[in-house]
């Protein structure tokens, strides 16, 4: 096998195994949530509306990134779609912060007097997810810059492929978390 092909394959494997690690991290957190909830003394509350907007953002940004990848495969510029993804990603970040604000307004606190793990879990888990997404935003920014500088072509788009895999994963992870918080 050619060196570049091995590198291609190895980078993707590296990413997939890393994703496995992240899955275990969130599996740990959400199973802690389930175990703790089963013990009672638990506050029930609805997810803030802003989290629904986050969910829409996640789906929309995955779509734009998908178009970016299709474009580069056809040797067209992916930049515009990458910029769109970046913008929606930033909107997601904003919506998360707004969501936390909503929670505070409802009397669901992260810490201190009157806080309960039922609320704290939402903050900590969504914060942990957001940090992973911000990691993705940084990678996405680099990819966008490289795309702007015509770094990619139909024979060389590993960077876009890698960020796509990661981004779709982080999006799916949010979908899972959102459904988990809403219905578990």
């Amino acid at each position, binding site marked *: 096998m050619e060196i570049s092909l*091995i590198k291609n*394959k*190895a980078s993707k*494997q*590296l990413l997939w*195994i*890393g994703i*496995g*690690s*992240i899955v*275990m*991290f*969130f*599996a*740990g*957190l959400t*199973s*802690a949530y389930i*175990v*703790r909830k089963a*013990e009672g*003394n*638990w506050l029930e509350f609805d997810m803030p509306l802003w989290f629904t907007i986050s969910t829409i953002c996640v789906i929309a940004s995955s779509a734009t990134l998908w178009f970016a990848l299709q474009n580069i495969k056809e040797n067209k510029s992916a930049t515009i779609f990458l910029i769109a993804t970046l913008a929606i990603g930033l909107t997601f970040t904003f919506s998360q912060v707004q969501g936390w604000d909503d929670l505070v307004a409802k009397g669901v606190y*992260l*810490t*201190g*007097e*009157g*806080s*309960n*793990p*039922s609320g*704290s*879990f939402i903050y*900590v888990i969504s914060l*942990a997810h957001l940090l992973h997404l911000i990691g993705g935003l940084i990678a996405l920014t680099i990819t966008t810059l490289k795309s702007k500088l015509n770094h990619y072509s139909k024979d060389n788009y590993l960077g876009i492929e890698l960020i796509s895999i990661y981004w779709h994963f982080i999006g799916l992870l949010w979908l899972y978390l959102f459904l988990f918080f809403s219905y578990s």
Partner: protein
Amino acid sequence: MSEHHKETFITKYIFSLDHKMIAKQFLITGMFMGVVGMTLSLLFRLQLSNPGESFAVLEFFLGEKWAPGGVLDPNMYLALVTMHGTILVFWVLTAGLTGTFANFLIPLQIGARDMASGFMNMLSYWFFFAATVVLLSSLYVETGPASAGWTIYPPLSALPQAIPGSGLGQDLWLIAMTLFVVSSLLGGLNYIVTILNLRTKGMTMMRLPLTIWALLIVAILGVLSFPVLLSCSLLLIFDRSFGTSFYLSDIIIGGEALHNTGGSPILFEHLFWFLGHPEVYIILLPALGIVSEVISVNSRKPIFGYKAMVGALLVIALLSFVVWGHHMFLTGMDPFLGSVFTFTTLLIAIPSAVKVFNYLATLWRANIRFTPAMLFAIGFVSTFITGGLTGIILGDSALDINVHDTYFVTGHFHIVMGVSAIYGMMAGVYHWFPKMYGRMMNKKLGYFHFWVTFISAYGVFFPMHFLGLAGLPRRYYTNSAFPMFDELTNINEIITFFAIIGGLVQLLFIFNFFYSIFKGTKATENPWKSNTLEWTTPVERIHGNWPGEIPTVERWAYDYSKPDADDDFIPQTVPLKKGEIEH
């Protein structure tokens, strides 16, 4: 290839990208931490055998603050136990063992120039180094190092005001552990990708030496279980520093009621042991791999049941994720759930027995060469059996209840995990030293080291089982406060005696190690007449491993004493003869 680059002292010895140098960095840091961890244990052993007595050595090491008048301070006792456990479990037997042998052996035994990412590999070491510095620095803070045990159970670890060690010491512990987990993940990702992608031509998965199989499975265990430790510590950090209540509820401390409600310390135990049990196998599996290799080479026989050995490793790894509850039988667990965990735990006896019987079958009627490495490998089989048998008692919830949290547990896990893994590591060091440094270690010192270690390790940990059966709880500062344990004082004196002897003889090993690096007799390319690929590399140990083409692999790694062969070993690079059947 980077072998043409001019290397400065810094790129060669410090920020090296060469897997062999990184392996040595891990080894020497691990050995250093081993000495630190062992010294700490000797200090608290003095208190256990002679409670409340004054020792100049305690005052020398700990100063007037932690050993006033030479008597160990109770808080410092807890700190010593915690640091001893943390250092040995993570720094020596995880990073020291896997870090050394995964880095050293993976590229050499699969036929690769280096790791998939030399840079990630270097980062992995330096994160580990940073973790080491942070952990050691916690020994010097005013309130002392972390004292909640290596398992850092809350609330002791979650409330900075609980005991002196719950303060800054615990914070530093958590920072060190986070750096450590990052290091492990970087290393683990790299090991997996390297083994899957960079094998030389002909090196199929079923031709891999068992060392590589073990290291691959360990890396997978690591990337799947360490993140859970991270999530567990994340919640702990929030409890400690930001006032959440994941693990805390209804606590009154110093007469003041805390606001925390709704938390559960048992939750921590679940999360912790979900990592904690795979961690046991992260420690043990590399030793199993090394021992398989050393036993086969020195028995001059193929390893018995190669496929069963691989299968057993996989089954042990898989089961390790579903047995964590056996650490928690006494947490108010539903007895039915307890019996489920008993069942899964006892299942581990099956693959473990497969391994033991295969080792014995390999040794059976073999033409054994008793090198120091081989002695340690056989010593491993011995401790793996003795320690494993008491594991059956502890894994059974009905029996465990009687000896839970006593010295029986301490004796069990030190033999089966601690001593066994150390023997595996020693076997590895003696065996691959010629490849690491191009020289041989002194054999006579090696024999002396083995026998004294072997006798004193049993001398320390075997009597602990009797202490445990008598009901002596572990982790107590003193057992002189309870008249019922007065008769056990002699046993504790014997244990401490052997601990000191066993500790001193390790200095001899360290002398042998460093002396041999500079003054040992020069090694030949393949001193043990071994089949694996690393022994086809030149003694000079060049960057890139092989001067010309990477050799191709033609057969499995265990063609020893093959009938009709000219020699009693056939390296993996030798093509099959016409009509010859591969094992």
